[in-house]
C-alpha cells in the first residue's frame, strides 16, 4: 500500500446533496480495494468528459485525462490499445455520453475494449443550468423546453444490449453499497462494462423520493441469459412508472478489441529496415 491520499486538494464545487459525492466516495473505496488486490495505483487512469461528473478528474488523486464533451470513450479505448496493462475507468454524463458522444458509446460496446464506463445519469444538464437530456422523461420542463419535452427518453440499457456490450448494469446513488459492488464487478469484467448510474441532481432534477420508492436490487436473475437481460432492461423505460431494478443485468465473455488487435500486428521494430524494404519494392 502506498498510503497515497486519493483526494486532491482541489476545492470541491458540487452542490450540497449532489449524487456525485456518492459516486466519488464509491470510487475512492473501489480504488483502495483494487490496491489491496494488488493493482498498482500508477496503472489506473480515469477519463472524464465535460459536465458536473467530470470534476471527478480534479478531485481524485489518480492519473486522469479531462477530455471534452462527449469524447471520453475514444480516448479510453486508445489508451487501452496503447497499453493493455492500464486499468481504464471512464466517468461520463448522460448529456455527455448519450447525446454528444452517443456514436462512441455504441462503438465502445461493439468493440468490447476492457474499460469500465460509469454514466452519471442525472437525466438533466446540470452545469448548463437545467435542460433536458436523452433520458429525461416526456414532458420534462427544462430551460430549453419550458412547455415540456415533446420526445420520449431512450433506454440506454437496451441500446447497450443491442450494441454488444458484455457487461450491462444499473446503479443508483441512493444505494451506495450496491453501486460500489456493481462498479467493482464491472472493473473485474474482462471487456466493456457499462454501468448506468441514476444520480440525483440536487439543483435541477431531484428524484431522490422517486427512486427511493421504486428501486430494488435484482435477484434471482440469470445474468448470462440475453433475453432475460432484455426483459429486465425493459422493465422500466425511463419514462412511465415502474419498478427500477439495480445491479447486473447482463454479463458475457467475448474477446476484447485489444487482444484481437495485438494478435494481428507485425513485430519488426527497426524503422530503417522497414523503410528500406518498402523502397526496394518500389524501385
Amino acid at each position, binding site marked *: 500500500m*502506498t498510503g*497515497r491520499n486519493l483526494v*486532491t486538494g*482541489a476545492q470541491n464545487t458540487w452542490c450540497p446533496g449532489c449524487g456525485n459525492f456518492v459516486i466519488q466516495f464509491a470510487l475512492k473505496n473501489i480504488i483502495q480495494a483494487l490496491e489491496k488486490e494488488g493493482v*498498482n495505483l*500508477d*496503472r489506473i*487512469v480515469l*477519463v472524464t468528459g*465535460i459536465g458536473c461528473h467530470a*470534476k471527478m*478528474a*480534479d478531485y481524485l*488523486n*489518480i*492519473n*486522469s*485525462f*479531462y*477530455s*471534452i464533451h462527449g*469524447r471520453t470513450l*475514444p*480516448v*479510453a*479505448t*486508445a*489508451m487501452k*490499445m*496503447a*497499453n493493455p*496493462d*492500464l486499468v481504464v475507468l471512464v466517468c461520463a454524463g448522460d448529456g455527455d455520453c448519450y447525446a454528444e458522444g452517443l*456514436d*462512441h458509446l455504441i*462503438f465502445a460496446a461493439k468493440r468490447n475494449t476492457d474499460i469500465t464506463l460509469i454514466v452519471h445519469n442525472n437525466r438533466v444538464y446540470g452545469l448548463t443550468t437545467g435542460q433536458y437530456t436523452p433520458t429525461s422523461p416526456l414532458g420534462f420542463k427544462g430551460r430549453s423546453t419550458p412547455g415540456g419535452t415533446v420526445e420520449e427518453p431512450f433506454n440506454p440499457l437496451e441500446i447497450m444490449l443491442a450494441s454488444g456490450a458484455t457487461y450491462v448494469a444499473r446503479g443508483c446513488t441512493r444505494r451506495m453499497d450496491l453501486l460500489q459492488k456493481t462498479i467493482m464487478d464491472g472493473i473485474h469484467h474482462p471487456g466493456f462494462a457499462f454501468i448506468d448510474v441514476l444520480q440525483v441532481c440536487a439543483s435541477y432534477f431531484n428524484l431522490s423520493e422517486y427512486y427511493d420508492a421504486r428501486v430494488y436490487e435484482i435477484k434471482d436473475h440469470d445474468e448470462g441469459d440475453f433475453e432475460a437481460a432484455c426483459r429486465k432492461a425493459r422493465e422500466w423505460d425511463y419514462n412511465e412508472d415502474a419498478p427500477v431494478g439495480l445491479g447486473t443485468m447482463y454479463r458475457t465473455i467475448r474477446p476484447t478489441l485489444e487482444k484481437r*488487435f495485438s494478435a494481428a*500486428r*507485425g*513485430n*519488426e*521494430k527497426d*524503422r*530503417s529496415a*522497414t*523503410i528500406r*524494404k*518498402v*523502397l*526496394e519494392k*518500389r*524501385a
Partner: protein
Amino acid sequence: MLCGVRELMKEISVLIGGKAGDGINSAGMVVAHLFNRMGYRVYMYFDYPSLIKGGHNFAIVRASRDRIGTHRDRVDFILALNQDSVDFHKDLCREDTEILYDSSRVRAEGIGVNIPEILKAEQAPAVMGNSCLIGAFARAAGIEWEVLEAVFERQIPKALAKNLNIARRGFDEARECCRIEPLGSLPLPVISGNEAIGLGLLHGGLDAYVAYPMTPTSNILHFMAEVAETHDLLVFHPENEIAVILMALGLGYAGKKTAVGTSGGGFCLMTEGLSLSGMSEIPVVVVLGQRTGPSTGLPTYTAQSDLHFALHAGQGEFPRLVAAPGDAEQAFLWSSLLLQLAWKYQTPAIILCDKTLCEGFYSFNNPDATIPLIPANPPGIPGPGYLRYELSADGVSGMLFPPARETVIKVNGYTHDQAGITTEKADLASLMSEKRQRKGAALEEEMARLRPVEIGGEAGSDVALICWGSTVGVCREVAAGMGLLLVQPILLSPLPDREVKDALKGVKRLIAVEENSEGQLAMLLARYGIRVDAHIHRYDGRPFALEELEARVRGVLS
C-alpha cells in the same frame, strides 16, 4: 496520323486512359517504371472522377533526365483503352502525338491493336488488356523488350507469364516510331506523396496511425495498414474523424507517437480535438490532404484552399506547426521533422498537402541522410512531486506516461494549474497562456535552423515566383526556364518571415502562384509586410501544367 520514325527523345509524356476499373493507375505505374528502368526521373499525375466503375480515368506519365514534379500540356503518346481517351484529350495532342488504341473499342488514327482478340487467344481476363497496350507502346517508343520484361517481373505480381505473353503480342503488332535513349542512371524508387508522408512519419518515430477514409489521404491509411502487417505499428480506423483525433490524443497520453490523416471535411470534425491537443499539450500530427471545396466540392481533384483553415482551426490560441511539402522528398523530410518537433514541443502539427502531391507519383531520392534528428526534451522526473505542466524557461514541461512510479499524470482541456487541475483564477490563466506562448517562441527559434524556405531558380533575378505545396514542381521548371527566382516557404506556421524576406532581397516583382481563388499565401505574407505584386490562380481542381503556367507568368510580365 502515320507513324514516322523520330529522333531520340530526351523527355517524354504518355497519357494512358480508360474507364474506372481498367486499372489505369497501375498501368500508368508500369509505364513510369519502364522509364525509371532506363534511368529517367518520372512523375505521374492521376486523374479520376468519384466513382468505382465506368467514367473516364487517365494518368499522365512524364519522364525526364532531371527531377520533375509536373506534367506538360502536350503528350507524345496516348494509350487509349476507351474512346474518351482520344476524344477528351485533343488539347494535349500535337502533330506528332502517337495514339495506340484498342481497335475493338476505339476509333482513332495511329496504331490499333485488337485487344479482345489477343485476350481471347490467351484466355485472359479483360483487365490484362493494359499489358497488351503497354507492350505495343514499348515497341512504338523503341523500348527494348528486355526492359519491359524486367519491369513486368517486378511490378506485376500475379500471372506474370500470361501478362508477358499478352504484352509480347502487343509488342509484335506495333511498330517503332521513335527511340527513347536509355540513360546511365540507376532506377529510383517511384512512390506517391502519400507513401512519402507515411515513410517520413515512420522515420520520425511513428508508433500509431489513426484515420477514417477520405480522399486524398485514404491511401496513407491503406499503406500504413500494409506496413503494420510486418512492422510494430498500431493502425486503426474508427467510427469517425472525431474519434480519430481523440484516439490519437489517448494514444499520445499513453506515450505513442501518433498521426492521423484526413481531408477538409474530416478536419472540420477534428478541430475541437485539435484545440484539446493545444490545451492539453498532447502532441498529434494531422495529415491534411486538400481537395477542391467548399463542402464535398470535387472530391477527387486538387486545391490549395485550406491554408487559412489549417492556420486557424480550433478555438483559442495555441502554438501549432503547419508545413506544406511540395514533392515526395520534401514530404518524407517534413513528415519526419513535424512528428519529432510536435513531440519535442508538445503541440499539434499539420502536414498540409493536396491531391496532386498525395496521389501523384515521384522518383524518390531518399533524403534520409540529410534529415536532422531533433533531440527530444528530457522527460519528467517520476514521483509524487511530478507536475505535468511544470513551468520552464521555454514553456516545455517534461512528459511522463502512465504507469510512472508513484506518479499522478493529469492532462486537462480546461485551463489548469501546473499539476493539471482545473483552475479559473485570472493570474493562473495568464501564466499558463504565457507558458504556451513561450513554447511557440522556442519553436520559432528552432525552426530557423531547419531550412524552412526552399530557394530555387535563378539567384539574383529581380522577378520571383512564390508558391507553397505541390505547385513547387511546376514552379521550379518555370523559374528555371524563364530565369526567375523561386521561393517556397515550406513552413507556414510559424511563418519563417525573416528567411522569406532575406530570400526576396533585391526582388522588384513578386508573383504568387496558388491553386485557390483568394490568394491565401499572399494574404498570410501580407500580415508580415511582404507584398505580392501579381497573383496567378487556378481553382478548377486541376493542377497547373508547365506550359500553361509559363504562359500565365509571361502574361503577368508583359
